[in-house]
């Protein structure tokens, strides 16, 4: 076709949101914060398992340090490395919609899979099930040795 030209040199990466680009030092600072959070997310649960005797408290600590921090880390990557803040709004909505969809899936499937008994039903197979890895000879000895 006459009007099908070779791509004009429109390879400029400079489009819209790139005007908000940061200096390299900014990204290195974000990386530093991410590393600090990584340390917390490893140290928190380790401490919870070794120091805290109350099971509920330990569980809450693990929940916040492992998963709470994972969410914060993810948010920082999405915001600062993927520049979602200066991206078109619908991109954010799209990603959130996908996450909501997964929430919906878990919400719909959970009542059957997550629990083993409910309103007039029992999943006997799941209740009776024992982990083969627990009772076998290759139990704690091998696994713990590596830590």
């Amino acid at each position, binding site marked *: *076709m006459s*009007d*099908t030209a070779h791509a004009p040199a429109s390879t400029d990466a400079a489009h819209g949101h790139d005007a908000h680009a940061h200096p390299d030092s900014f990204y290195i600072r974000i990386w530093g914060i991410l590393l600090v959070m990584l340390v917390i997310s490893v140290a928190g649960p380790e401490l919870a398992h070794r120091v805290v005797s109350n099971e509920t408290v330990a569980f809450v600590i693990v929940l916040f340090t492992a998963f709470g921090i994972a969410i914060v880390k993810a948010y920082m990557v999405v915001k600062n490395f993927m520049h979602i803040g200066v991206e078109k709004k619908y991109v954010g909505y799209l990603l959130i*919609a*996908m996450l909501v*969809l997964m929430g*919906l*899936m878990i919400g*719909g*499937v959970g*009542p*059957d*899979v997550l629990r083993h008994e*409910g*309103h*007039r*039903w029992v*999943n006997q*197979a*799941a209740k009776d*099930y024992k*982990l083969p890895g627990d009772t076998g000879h290759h139990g704690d000895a091998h696994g713990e040795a590596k830590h």
Partner: protein
Amino acid sequence: MSTAAAHAEHDHAHGHAHHDEGFIKKYLWSTDHKIIAMQYLFTGIFMAFIGGFTVYAFRMQLAFPGMSVPGYGRVTATDYNALVTTHGSVMIFWVAMPVLIAALGNYLIPLMIGCDDMVFPRLNRLSYQLFLLSSIVLIASFYVPGGAFGGAWTSYPPLSAKAEYSLTGLGSSMWLFAVALEFAAFLLGGINFITTVMNSRAPGMKMFDVPIVVWMIIIASILFMASVGPLIAGAVMLLFDQQLGTGFFDPAKGGDPVLWQHLFWFFGHPEVYVVLLPAMGIVAEIITVFSRKKLFAYKTVLYTAIGTGVLSFFVWAHHQFIAGIDPRMANVFSVTTLLISIPVAEMVFVYIGTLYGGSIRLTTPMLWALAFIAEFLLGGVTGIFLGASGADIYFHDTYFVIAHFHYTFFPIAFIGSFAAITYWFPKMFGKMMNETWGKVHFWGTIIPFNAIFIPLFLLGARGDHRRIYDYRHFPDLMKAGMQDLRVFATLALLVLLAFQVVFLVNLFYSIFRGEKASANPWNANTLEWQAPSPPPHGNFPQGLPNVYRGPYEYSHPDRQDDYWPQTEPDAAKS
């Protein structure tokens, strides 16, 4: 170059030697969206033969158990399982999906939004090649030891997970692999469609100037993309269950088979709307053109389609009412299932509103479009019985479900496709199809279609179970005339299949010998009719069009012509 699209089909169909050096580059390795569309279309038609042949073989077995089926031989119990599984999966994944979404999407999107190709032509080619590979893997699975997969198209574990149960160890895995490849192909294609429509519309074409069929294909692509992920994950897990012996879905190993059913239907139900919406879009295009009237409530159709899409994610567990799911969840899913009939019914009313007061022309595509509305309506109404969990407990796994399902999918996959092919045929091949033979084919399909499935509704209501190979072993299901109904349905099927020959003859005869078509034989508004028939590589030799108005400005009172192409500037108003 201008004959590229015109020749694409016969080379694909016959594969005869072509002295053109660039044959492979032009037809098999092309990045042109029209050629890729033809590749999808003819692969889909070829796969429809497999789907049609399998249904012929197993329906003959049901009607005349133990007979040697002409062209197949004796159908054994294992064969029967493989035949029904192949019929189901081929018709949905290898016929409805490639024809309605991939072929029409590829053909129509760049033309209807006024650009020269998809935004990622090579990705598009890769998408077709993956699809072709998936078809080859599926066909190859018929010939491996044990034969083709026989665990039904839903592939429920533990039946599908263990070779001891399904008796088709390798066949099951190949089936799963083929389905996964096909999903990958449509994911690539879908992303291509979405970005093309978002970014490459003709100058002046605003959101609400996009033809409904393009909108529908885009919404369908988004639905597909959003729903298929968990099933891809589930397919990997099931493949590991089959080949490595893991226990994701095996209760004896701590797994949960109901999880697969959830993952499957989380995709499987939106999938119904993935194929329904493009068919609805095709019908919208056709009824506006052939009633010479503006589409009644464009935005309503659009918002309704989006609403249907959103709601389709909330209904999946209605397939599992007797699978042992939590009864309170069954109540929730009953309500959402009944709710989703509202937007679909709304679309049907909008189409009837469009027809009202129009000057209707009963051409072949219009007949198909009207038949779609009527037959799909029956399918939708019978779905109400199955969506209500109380009634479903009785109807589940009977032929009532089969009949309901086919009253929705046959209109979608076949009536919709025939409507599209007959309507866009002049554009695709630059020739007109024969109207008389088109109408013969139409009545020869619609009448036997109803004759097949109305008996199945009656059988299902009498408790006829769907997974039985030989009814002679079940005296309760052989009572008073039940076998006669089966024979009647099977004979009607033979008539339906025979009439498809009319279509094929008409198709190929018209491609080669048909009357030459003008650029805009139906006097339609949308952009594809402003391009030559067939459009050359690059689509619009006179320059890419600009758009000045919506796609449905028919019988405008200020104009002499009863149509007003989207590309015509306002100054040209007569």
